[in-house]
């Protein structure tokens, strides 16, 4: 210890003079320091929580508005448009010809959105470039059949009450990852209240653990 003790003695004796004279300044400085600290802290925290998401996500409007509630009323349940194929695969967002089962060149209603739909897509025979809120990345394998057919789950569990919505919210895309904001969830802290607030792997795993007693193996959900 001797070595260090010597030093510390030197140190204290040396700085003793300053310390006595400097005490008062110290406090002021400290006070100022604390204020600066708080200001900086609050500023950074708020910008990180409120401003950051605005920068992170780009807003995109859907080609035209779609009234789920109306269509559910007309067509029945989700499956009448979001259906399964013979081989058990899921069609997801319906293709134009599915719409044409009911729609035609003649508009069925008189909304401007349908007019857009008829003119720009039906007549042009173009597919509607919908933004998919719940699109999962390429590495994910998801079997709708396993969940809705076999496990008897409800669409709402993951997709929420979109079926009751009358208009489409703007699609928010993560500028870095290209993911839809719905995957991470609206809440930037990733806090969720409902099962459909978030669609990250942990949410799948959580439910799998509860329902099957196991989070599942890689290939069960990845390809």
């Amino acid at each position, binding site marked *: 210890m001797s070595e*260090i003790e010597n*030093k510390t003695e030197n140190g*204290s004796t040396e700085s003793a003079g300053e310390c006595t004279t400097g005490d008062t300044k110290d406090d002021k400085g400290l006070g100022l320091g604390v204020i600066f600290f708080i200001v900086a802290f609050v500023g950074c925290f708020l910008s990180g929580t409120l401003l950051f998401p605005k920068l992170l996500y780009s807003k995109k409007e859907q080609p035209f508005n779609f009234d789920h509630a109306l269509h559910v009323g007309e067509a029945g349940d989700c499956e009448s448009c979001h259906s399964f194929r013979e081989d058990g695969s899921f069609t997801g967002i319906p293709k134009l010809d599915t719409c044409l089962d009911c729609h035609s060149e003649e508009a069925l209603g008189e909304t401007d959105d349908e007019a857009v739909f008829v003119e720009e897509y039906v007549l042009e025979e173009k597919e509607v470039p919908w933004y998919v809120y719940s699109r999962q990345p390429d590495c994910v394998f998801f079997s709708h059949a396993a969940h809705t057919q076999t496990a008897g789950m409800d669409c709402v569990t993951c997709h929420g009450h979109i079926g009751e919505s009358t208009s489409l919210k703007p699609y928010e895309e993560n500028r870095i990852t290209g993911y839809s904001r719905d995957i991470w969830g609206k809440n930037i802290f990733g806090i969720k209240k409902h099962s459909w607030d978030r669609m990250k792997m942990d949410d799948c795993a959580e439910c799998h653990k509860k329902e099957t007693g196991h989070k599942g193996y890689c290939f069960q959900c990845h390809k």
Partner: protein
Amino acid sequence: MDSALIPEGAKRCSFPKFAIGIAIVSAVVLWGVFAMFLCWFKGLNQTNMDDYYGFALWIWADLAVIAVGGGAFFTGLLRYIFKIDELKNIINFAVIIGFICYSSALLILAIDIGQPLRGWFIFWHANVHSMLTEVAFCLSAYFAVLTIEFIPNILENRQANKVPFFHHLAHNMHGVMAVFAATGAFLSFFHQGSLGGVAGVLYGRPFAVREGLLIWPWTFFLFTWSAAAFGPCFTLLVTKITETVTGKKLVKDNVVHLLAKISGWMIVTYIIAKIIDTIYWAMVTAPSLGFTLSHFYSNNGFYGYWILITEIVLCGVVPGAILIMKSTRENPTLRLVAIILGTIGICLNRWVMVLQIMAVPVMSFDTWALYFPSWQEIATTILPVAYGIILISVAYRYLPVFPQEQELNTIEPVSKTE
């Protein structure tokens, strides 16, 4: 011009001279950094690694620097836990060397993985069965400890020390250092071990696989032991080099002799264990899988019995012997030979436990795979060395690394022999 920073009463070369030296070494650092960025942006196709050599030069360098950095934890252990007081005169330096080795190890790992931006998955999605997970956790933790152990020494810089806050901080940290040393020793014990485990658990690779205790193969214990044994050799070697470069005596002989003696006995005990392990593996483990010892050391252009003998006899038994005998130990030349051999030995052991494993064919119809690193690999491997030199010179220049320095260099020639 930087005299204000230089420890009081210490003589240092002129700043320009110092600057030039640093500049030269920095050039090497830049070269390594360039190679590093190539690997990050163009991918690992910049290396000569392939599907047979998933682990190559880098992993060896990693294991080697961690092994020789083991001097830090072991000296720390002796100094703070076993209260071997003389060692305080070399502990600072041991810590610095450890710090360099471990920061280098982490850097190399960051280059080595194919997806650096996902590297944190090793913590987030940790697999408790994987030795590598254990390595990652202990490595990072111990690096933190070393940093903490290093801080007080930095704070002892003349200017920093003027700030009462830093001054007291340094003082108090010295006080509690034993706790960190203990943690460090514990952590280090585990990751040195788990690095050995990395090879030992490969039951698909008869050259690597070892039986063991519970989940830990014998290589686990051998690695820890060897690090503790040869680490001090490296500490002494670097001290010797620094002394030669600075042309000053920095550590008293009794300290050196003590550490050398401890190292010597550790080496001897380790080498006995290693020999037993090798014999058991060659006589029992490998044959039970259908392999004779000759399979691992023939039919190829490089790996022969020479490597086994060099590692165990020339770079194990010999330095061990030299260092345990007072007469030879206290003979500077022989001691130097011993610590050099020892350092080579530990590096050779790590080489064998990484690259030869990859080289040995396992399927009866497979062939030996040999490999030579690309310049990018070499550059990134030299990078830590250059960085180490810089850090040591800076530390030596501005920090009171060697408590005995002044005493040894102010009092003219009289060099006492105890």
